[in-house]
C-alpha cells in the first residue's frame, strides 16, 4: 500500500529502480572528489540567497578547493587535502583547521549506501532536469520515518556532480538549497585559482586542538545514548579544548549515512550561555538541556523530534576501567 501510494503520486513522472538511483549516488560520490570544476552557486536558506564562487580540482591524489562569497562581506574558505583555512577579512582573522570541513559537496561512505534502503526511499525521476544550462539526473531521497529530512539532488548527466541539492522537510518545505547557476568542467585549473587574494598580514591566526590521551580530567564517565533512532550510529567521538572554555568539550557525531547529528557536552557552563529547549537555523535544529552539572546541546540537519530524541536519551555512564 505504501509503495503503491508513493509510486502512484510520484507516478505522473516515471521513476526507475532503487538500484539505478543508488548507482547515480555512487557516481556522485566519486565525482565530488575527483571532478575538476569551477562555478558559481547560490546558497538558499528560506528567503535568503547568497552567492558563492567555487573552484575544485583533484591533483596528485589530493583535493584542492576554494570557495568565497560574492555578496556581502567577504568570506573565503581554502581547502588543501584535509587542511582547511577560513579567512574572515571583516574579523581580521584566519582560522586554520588541520582536519576541517569536508568540502562543499557531500561524500557518502559505503556504509551509507548500504543503509540507505532501510531508512530512505531512493527514487530516480526519469525525466531529465536542467540546471545551469546542463542536463542533470534527478534523484529524490524520501525519508521513511519522522527522524530525518528528505533530499532532492540533480546530478550532472555527464559528470554526476550535484548541481542542485535541496533539503526538504516532511511537509514539503524547502529548508535549504545549494544550486549552481554556472559551472564548467575544464581539464585543468591553474594553482592560482586556489590561492587567496586576501592580504592576511596582521590577522589573528586561530586554531583548535584535541585533548591528548591521558590529558583528560573527567574520564570517570562517558556519554551514551539509551536509545538511538533507527539507522543512526556513532561515527566520531571527539574531546577538544575550545578557546574560552576551560574544560574540554565532548562531541559525539551520529549519522544514518545521509543525515548527521552532533551532541556537545560541556561542564561548568554558565546558565546564561545554556540553550534550554529547541531552536533552529534553516534546516538545522538544536536542542539544549542540563543534565547534572553538564549542559548538552544537540545540533543536526534533522527534524526537531530527532534532536530532542537524542538530547533526552543521553546519559552519563561510568567509564570502563583500563585493563
Amino acid at each position, binding site marked *: *500500500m*505504501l509503495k503503491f*501510494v508513493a509510486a*502512484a*503520486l510520484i*507516478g*505522473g*513522472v516515471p521513476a526507475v529502480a532503487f538500484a539505478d538511483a543508488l548507482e547515480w549516488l555512487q557516481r556522485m560520490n566519486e565525482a565530488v572528489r575527483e571532478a575538476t570544476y569551477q562555478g558559481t*552557486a547560490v546558497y538558499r*536558506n528560506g*528567503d535568503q540567497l*547568497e552567492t558563492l564562487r567555487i573552484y575544485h580540482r583533484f591533483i596528485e591524489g589530493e583535493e584542492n578547493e576554494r570557495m568565497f562569497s560574492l555578496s*556581502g*562581506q567577504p*568570506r573565503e574558505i581554502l581547502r588543501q587535502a584535509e587542511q582547511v583555512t577560513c579567512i*574572515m577579512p571583516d*574579523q581580521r582573522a584566519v*582560522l586554520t583547521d588541520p582536519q576541517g*570541513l569536508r568540502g*562543499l*559537496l*557531500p561524500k*557518502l561512505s559505503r556504509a551509507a549506501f548500504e543503509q540507505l534502503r532501510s531508512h530512505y526511499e531512493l527514487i530516480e525521476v526519469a525525466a531529465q*532536469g536542467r*540546471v545551469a544550462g546542463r542536463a542533470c539526473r534527478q534523484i*529524490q531521497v*524520501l525519508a521513511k520515518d519522522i527522524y530525518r529530512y*528528505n533530499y532532492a539532488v540533480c546530478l550532472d548527466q555527464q559528470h554526476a556532480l550535484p548541481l542542485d541539492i535541496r533539503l526538504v522537510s516532511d*511537509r*514539503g*518545505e524547502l529548508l*535549504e*538549497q*545549494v*544550486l549552481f547557476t554556472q559551472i564548467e568542467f575544464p581539464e585543468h585549473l591553474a594553482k592560482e585559482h586556489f590561492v587567496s587574494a586576501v592580504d592576511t598580514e596582521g590577522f589573528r591566526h*586561530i586554531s583548535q586542538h584535541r585533548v591528548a590521551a591521558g590529558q583528560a580530567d573527567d574520564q570517570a564517565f562517558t556519554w551514551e545514548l539509551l536509545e538511538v533512532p533507527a539507522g543512526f550510529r556513532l*561515527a566520531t567521538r571527539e574531546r577538544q579544548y*575550545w*578557546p574560552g*572554555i576551560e574544560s574540554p568539550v565532548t562531541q559525539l*557525531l551520529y549519522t544514518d549515512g545521509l543525515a*548527521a547529528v*552532533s551532541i556537545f557536552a560541556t561542564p561548568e*557552563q554558565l546558565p546564561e*550561555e*545554556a*540553550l*534550554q*529547549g*529547541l531552536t*533552529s*537555523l534553516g534546516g538545522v535544529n*538544536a536542542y539544549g538541556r542540563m543534565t547534572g552539572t553538564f549542559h548538552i546541546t544537540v*545540533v*543536526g*540537519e534533522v527534524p*526537531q*523530534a530527532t534532536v*530532542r530524541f537524542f538530547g*533526552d536519551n543521553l546519559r552519563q555512564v561510568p567509564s570502563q576501567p583500563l585493563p
Partner: protein
Amino acid sequence: MSEMQTQQELISAFLDEEMSPQQIDELLAQLDCEQGRGLVCRQAMLGTVLTGQAKVYRDISGAVRAAIREEPLPGAGNTVVSIFAAKAAVRSVAPRWKVPAAGLALAASMAVAAIVVVQPSSHRAESGALLAAQQEAPTASASLALQPAAAVAQVEVPASAPVKLAARELVIAPPEQARPIIAQWSSADAQPVNLDGAATMPVNVQERLNSYLINHARYGGGYALSGSLGYARVAASPQQRMDEPRK
C-alpha cells in the same frame, strides 16, 4: 471493494484531477494526514511536491495545509505549526552580535555568526508565509521539484502588498524595509520573545550555538548529504557589522 482498493481509486481520481476539494480532504483524512505523521501521507505529499507536479500541488496545497495546520511535532511542542498559526509580523533587524575574542571555535563562531543573529519567533512564521504565498501564487517557484536555475532566480514574491492566506493575514516586508540579515536561529520554544517580537535569547547562547554549528559542519559534512549545506552556511557572507570582539 476493500479499503485499499477504495483508496487506490481515490488516489487515481486525485491524480486525474477529478476530485473536488472536499473529496481531497477526505482522501487526506484517510491517509492519516490529520496526524501528519503517517508515512503514506508524507510520501504522498512529498512525492507530489518533489516530482514537480506543481499544478497538482497547488490544487492540494490548501487541503494539505488545513490537514496539518494544527499538527504538533512529536515531542516538539507546536513550534513548527507556528509557521501557519503565527500572527502577522513585519521583519525587523535583530540586535547585533557580540563576537568572542579568540580561538578557533569562537572564530569559527564568527564565521557562522555572520549568518546567525537573534531571531524573532516570527521568522518561521514569515518563512512559512512566504513559502505558502509562493505556493499559492501562480508564478510561484516554491515547488520543491528540481527546476532550472532560472526558475529559482526568478522567484516572484509579493513585495509590497500583504499576502492573504486562508483565514490568516500575513505581511511580508517590502524590499526597502529592513530585512533579516541572513540565516538566523529562530527562537522556537527555547526562549521567550518581547513585545517587539525580538528574541531574548542571550548573545552568549547564540555564540555557543554558532560554535556548535561549525563544529558539526566540520565533522558531519563528511557523512551527511546535507553537510554541503553546512559548508555553505559558513561561507555565506554577512550583511551585518558585528561588534568588536570581547576582551
